[in-house]
């Protein structure tokens, strides 16, 4: 009896171990694959020409493989989404965690969850049908598909994770801090801004980093609203292409060096996301310490 249960536990343990190893193997295989397939084109094109070249003309008679436009677009797009999404998200989180009454809080919380579950292609569709024409009319530009449209769509897409994580962080702020502030004669609003938010700052920072990760990795929605031309992003109304969409839009018909260069772009994106993950871990560790 004893032995068979030991055997049983051993088997279960083994299964879980294998499942765990599968995950690790996936990460390793993807990383190695990306590095191996991404490096040749970089060597061929030259690291500097590749990263800092301002022209991407992969199908021209004399092809150019500069991905600076994509890198900058991804960075600007992400920063723009953060600049829009973080203030809105954090304020919404303050409202939800501190001010909203029970039923309002429940309903809004559920809406946020739904927002998080909407597939990105739907964001793209709505952006295409509503936002792009809206921008064209409002700003009197020839085409609304632009960096601005992508920023707005990304900002909405990152809202749920920013709101949820910030709410969690704000709710974890000890009530004693807020009581102390109120007892000194500060108003509730003052208390939220000067005590609660600073006390929750590492959680809020982590939510921002998570938002950055989501925004920089998003492909489908931005492909549908950004116009997708490989321009340098020197205006909000420029039609632009992101790192993600650069890979996605040419992969199906590419070959040779062009194809290998797409892998290199994926590698660059991968490195960006790894850095963001490291940053996220850093903030989450800070959270735990406090």
């Amino acid at each position: 009896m004893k032995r068979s249960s030991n055997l049983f536990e051993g088997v279960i343990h083994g299964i879980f171990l294998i499942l765990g190893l599968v995950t690790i193997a996936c990460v390793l295989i993807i990383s190695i694959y990306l590095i191996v397939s991404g490096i040749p084109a970089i060597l061929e094109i030259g690291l500097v020409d590749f990263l800092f070249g301002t022209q991407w003309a992969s199908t021209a008679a004399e092809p150019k493989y500069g991905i600076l436009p994509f890198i900058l677009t991804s960075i600007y797009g992400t920063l723009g989404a953060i600049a829009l999404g973080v203030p809105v998200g954090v304020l919404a989180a303050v409202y939800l965690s501190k001010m909203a009454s029970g039923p309002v809080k429940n309903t809004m919380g559920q809406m946020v969850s739904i927002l998080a579950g909407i597939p990105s292609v739907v964001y793209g569709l709505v952006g295409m049908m509503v936002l792009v024409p809206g921008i064209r009319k409002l700003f009197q530009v020839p085409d609304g598909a632009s960096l601005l449209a992508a920023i707005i769509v990304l900002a909405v897409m990152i809202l749920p994770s920013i709101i949820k994580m910030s709410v969690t962080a704000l709710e974890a702020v000890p009530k004693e801090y807020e009581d102390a502030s109120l007892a000194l004669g500060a108003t509730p609003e003052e208390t939220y801004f000067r005590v609660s938010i600073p006390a929750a700052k590492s959680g809020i920072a982590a939510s921002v980093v998570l938002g950055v990760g989501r925004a920089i990795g998003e492909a489908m929605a931005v492909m549908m609203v950004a116009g997708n031309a490989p321009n340098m992003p020197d205006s909000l109304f420029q039609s632009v292409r992101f790192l993600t969409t650069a890979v996605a839009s040419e992969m199906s018909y590419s070959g040779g060096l062009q194809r290998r260069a797409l892998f290199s772009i994926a590698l660059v994106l991968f490195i960006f996301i790894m850095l963001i993950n490291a940053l996220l871990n850093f903030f989450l560790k800070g959270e735990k310490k406090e």
Partner: protein
Amino acid sequence: MKPIITAKDLCLWYGQSQALKNIDIAIPEQSITALIGPSGCGKSTFLKTLNRMNDLIPGVKITGTVEYNGQSIFDQDVNLLRKEVGMVFQKPNPFPMSIYDNVAYGPRTHGIRDRKRLDEIVERSLRDAAIWDEVKDRLKKNALGLSGGQQQRLCIARALAVQPRVLLMDEPTSALDPISTLKIEELAAKLKDKYTIVIVTHNMQQALRISDHTAFFLLGELVEYGDTDQIFTNPADQRTNDYVTGRFG
């Protein structure tokens, strides 16, 4: 002595349950009033009524009157009232920011921005709270790095920084070691020259050592209120006698 806070026929309910029953009390200025009584008798509730911190709890109903400075506290601006009637909590609760910013928090809230004035207020408050010498070289350090007793004195300094007239203290030493407790007691005795102090304590010796007046609460009622010496040596009510001699509670 002139009363600074007067409660008349004060009743308080948390939802359906009554926590304070017809409290009549007049708290004299520049003295220390101790609130004693067994756990759950309403001491904290009464204390929190005085600076309207009970306003924050949903379902609280209050009847009767409480006057501060001759005017009903419920007619006064709550933020100004709390500036005048400060509070020190049971558990030291400095903000997770620097020592300086903790003390400067209140004055900044009330509109003081000038750096030099803030410096003066911070120093004066920390001196008044008898902690200046211990922290003057580390004002920029996080307040959470201080010991429990230091944190509590910092909280007192933070409360003093807005120049209150009354200081409400809810068991301010119950989380502290004997030496820190002694320091806070000495501090309270010193502060009564400038401030009126109302202190909740479970420690009979403490009430006897520092207070001028003592109020004994039981089951939401104010059983007896008078000079501390009289309450402890010659109480009028049998229940007070039983409590102070340790026969129940």
